[in-house]
């Protein structure tokens, strides 16, 4: 009995290994045929594929320096391993708490004040019956989205700076004391939030306007027949119609709490506000690029990415739990 089983198994094993070699051979053959037949298509794809390989996948290999005492002279291979030293250093560093606090504060202020605005603006735009007016407002509020952060922050400096800005000129003209909008730590997060709103709130309406346009007009008709007022229609037809869009976007946003506008903060940062402005990315830049502590900075970057990835996965799962279609 036992012998028989063993024989059977041996046979099966032989069988599968034969199948494997045959499989391998035909796999190679298939690829050979495909490459020859579609060689020009592969040629077209090559530069782009090479780009993704070199600029998206190869740098992952570079993450290893987070575990090495990277020395420019020794090079990547010869630098000695330090294990999790940099991670331990970072978690025990008081900077860690500060970065975490600033990131969370900036992110949650954004979710609290920025996130609802595009929804409200889209609902109001949707109620505007004059199409020319509506299109004009849309054109205007989308515009700042296309300008760089340098221009947005630059305009902000031109308007709010303490010595030469028009706002402070007006304040001192009226006999008031100039307000240090740009250098007062207490105003810093508010300035960031206001800038984000000014730049992106208009643009953010697009996705909600699309969702609003997708609501079946029959539903409004039915509500009218039932005698629902415009307000009632908004509550019972419009809002449920865009609910899933709102939930999806909110969850995705929650998945990105670790990502705060790096360029914006980098540009707004100055010595007096640095303790409320420093976030993971600015820290990585300062310690890694400016101070040359590549290994340590990479470890900080990895920490941020891993937390970010976990949050995205959790958020996606949450979205599916709500019966919504996830990100993937």
């Amino acid at each position: 009995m036992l012998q028989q089983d063993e024989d059977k198994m041996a046979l099966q094993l032989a069988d599968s290994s034969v199948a494997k070699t045959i499989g391998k051979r035909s796999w190679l053959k298939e690829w050979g045929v495909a490459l020859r037949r579609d060689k020009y298509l592969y040629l077209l794809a090559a530069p782009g594929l090479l780009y993704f390989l070199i600029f998206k996948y190869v740098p992952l290999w570079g993450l290893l320096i987070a575990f090495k005492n990277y020395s420019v002279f020794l090079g990547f291979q010869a630098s000695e391993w330090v294990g999790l030293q940099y991670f331990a250093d970072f978690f025990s560093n008081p900077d860690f708490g500060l970065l975490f606090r600033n990131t969370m504060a900036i992110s949650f202020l954004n979710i609290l004040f920025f996130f609802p605005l595009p929804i409200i603006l889209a609902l109001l735009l949707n109620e505007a019956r004059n199409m020319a007016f509506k299109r004009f407002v849309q054109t205007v509020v989308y515009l700042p989205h296309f300008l760089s952060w340098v221009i947005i922050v630059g305009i902000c400096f031109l308007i709010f700076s303490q010595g030469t800005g028009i706002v402070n000129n007006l304040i001192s003209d009226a006999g008031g004391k100039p307000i240090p909008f740009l250098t007062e730590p207490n105003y810093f997060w508010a300035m960031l939030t206001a800038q984000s709103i000014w730049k992106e709130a208009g643009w953010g309406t697009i996705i909600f306007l699309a969702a609003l346009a997708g609501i079946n007009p029959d539903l409004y008709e039915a509500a009218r027949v039932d005698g629902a007022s415009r307000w009632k229609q908004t509550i019972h037809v419009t809002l449920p119609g865009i609910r899933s869009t709102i939930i999806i976007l909110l969850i995705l946003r929650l998945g990105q709490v670790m990502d705060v506008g790096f360029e914006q903060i980098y540009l707004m940062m100055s010595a007096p506000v640095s303790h409320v402005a420093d976030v993971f990315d600015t820290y990585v830049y300062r310690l890694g690029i400016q101070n040359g502590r590549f290994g340590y900075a990479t470890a900080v970057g990895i920490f941020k990415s891993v937390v970010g990835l976990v949050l995205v996965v959790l958020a996606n799962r949450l979205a599916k739990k709500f019966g919504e279609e996830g990100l993937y």
Partner: protein
Amino acid sequence: MKTGYGYRVFQVINYFFLALCGLVTLVPFLYVILVSFTDATEYMTSPIVIIPKHWSLASYEYIFSTSTFMRSMGVSAFLAIVGTACSLIVTSALAYAISRKRLKGRKFFQVSILITMLFSAGMIPNFLLIDSLGLMNSIWSLIIPSLTSAWYVLLMKNFFSEIPDELEEAARIDGCTDIGVFIKVILPVSTSALAAFGLFYAVGYWNTYFNAILYINNDALRPMQVVLQLMLITSSTQMADPSVAAMLESEANIPPQVIKMAAVVVSSLPIVMVYPFLQKYFIKGMMVGSVKG
């Protein structure tokens, strides 16, 4: 349709509020534009400008005469033109190839491209990569690392998949290779998509900023956004870059504030000019993206 009194009141308030939103967006721009055209002496005597009494083009004449600003504009224009061309070629070629169902490995390529949207190695590994490729302080360091994007490749692939196969078949019978089909048949029928993606890329290249901070350490290769940052932001908080500080001191005694505003206007002008086209295409792009598949 009957509308109640309350709804009409709401409509009036709504129009008022929307107009206010538009105004809040426009006023900072209008202010910057107006000051940039204000006569220097008028600005110096009373810097609270609403409508200038004396208009002047001096600030524009001045910044166009400075080599610092003009050179950076040249760099940005180069990026916007050459970068966009390179990006369009690489993106459309890859998108076309993976849109063909007969391409073996198509699924694998698509997934490999898609998942790059979910992670990034981050600043330091990218920096070390550029360094080891010898691209540091080369203008190509501002083009090659942003040559294409997963998002655009996949959007464009969706677009190409909708082109009927018959078009391709006809050209193939005439003896075209895949590259011939792509250039002679596919690209000519895709001009609107190419224009749209071209604008996406051009805006991105024109706004190139942080990659230049990371990879460029040569004054001659600074794109416009870097010079703008030095003019507008750094000069008021930290020690200014010498060439930019010199630039803000004009011989004609134009106040730095007015020069700065003229620079803002010049650097946003190309975007404002292509904006009407952008708006149309960007919204279309967003719609394509929001419909999964």
